[in-house]
């Protein structure tokens, strides 16, 4: 995403309000808190707008501010007490114990089941998936938002989709 060099803060931020709100809600799970988070994000971003480098991804930049704002909030601090362990690289392949090809297909017409599975996902895995699938951010921008190396983004996405898949399989029972 590139922007006209002279774009104002308002021009850049306005179209992102719905996304920021929705992501803030995913993080905080509370409407009042989500609105507060976005409000605080906007004022922080406005103050720091001088440090935003034109030509880089504004969405990634402001999502990073949103995330840091969340982490300092009461809910965020409480959530950070749970330490998230990255997958050991060796575990990644061994969990895939040669299922039959058809095992990979699950019924996805049931959106409620998908919503429930997403809710059950560990927050860091859900977060990376939302940034990728919902916000359409590139891996390098997700790495910027989460402040982790791109390799970690890749392994988290892989782990998130695998876990989501397993949760859905458990929920929905039979494969197609």
């Amino acid at each position, binding site marked *: 995403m590139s922007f006209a060099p002279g774009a104002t803060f*308002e021009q850049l931020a306005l179209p992102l309000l719905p996304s920021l709100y929705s992501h803030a*809600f995913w993080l905080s799970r509370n409407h009042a808190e989500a609105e507060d988070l976005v*409000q605080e994000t906007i004022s922080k971003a406005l103050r720091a707008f001088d440090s935003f480098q034109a030509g880089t991804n504004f969405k990634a930049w402001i999502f990073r501010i949103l995330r*840091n704002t969340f982490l*300092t909030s009461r809910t*965020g601090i409480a959530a950070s007490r749970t330490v998230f362990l990255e997958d050991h690289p060796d575990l990644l392949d061994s969990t895939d114990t040669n299922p039959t090809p058809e095992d*990979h*297909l*699950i019924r996805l017409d049931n959106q409620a089941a998908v919503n429930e599975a997403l809710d059950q996902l560990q927050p860091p895995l859900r977060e990376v998936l939302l940034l990728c699938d919902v916000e359409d951010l590139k891996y390098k921008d997700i790495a910027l938002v989460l402040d982790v190396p791109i390799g970690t983004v*890749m392994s988290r996405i892989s782990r998130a989709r695998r876990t989501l898949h397993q949760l859905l399989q458990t929920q929905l029972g039979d494969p197609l």
Partner: protein
Amino acid sequence: MTQTTQATGHPAPEQLNAFIDGELSSNEAHEVQQHLTDCHPCALRVLSATQLKAATARASQRFAAPPEALARLTAQLRPQEPKKTARIYTFRPFAWAALAASLVVAISLLGWRQVHQTNALSAELLDQHLATLSSGAAPEVLSTDRHTVKPWFQGKLPFSFNLPDVYPADTTLKGGNLTYLNGQPAALLLFTIHKHEVSVFLTPRAGSPTITTLPGIRSGFAIDHATTQDLRIIAVSDVNPADLDRLVSALVQAQ
């Protein structure tokens, strides 16, 4: 990025995911595509993961912003309508007085914020230090061995640090925890000096707030503070400040 699982000859899960997300170079994508035309299981994997991606995108719609909230946020973004120059001349004297008063308030608020930020940080440091003491829970990584403690943080923090070979007299490393300070991920190292508990917070210097003065003593606890080229090191303890300073210096030298 091209790595195939050697045992099977299939693309690694990460690579299939990167393919779905459009993150592969055209050559890499071509390779994967070639593989998919010949490999039924991988093709099904990709199909399934693509459906899952679409379903995840749909799932976000249930958390759309309520229109009122969106309206308030939009209002926050809109800059105040610039006042026409002509209007300024119609300002009554009391309006000027009000303007001057609000300026004074704004300026003093700025000063207050600076102090407030510093106080908030030292309060946060103290809270975290006391929480660690009172919980009685063992640190996430419980070891006196720097070769155990340091690697534990790998992958959990966006920065790295070194631990000294030798500590000042009667200073022992107890373990470490992951924590957040001012929204920055931080390493929390726990030490004892003469049986006094010490919490040491390490954060990347670049992202840290610009706090120049931390009070040396707060509620009877000593707070010591140092920066290296990349790190900000803050120590909190009820031990005497000179001992605390020796530990902070040892940590600074190790970087």
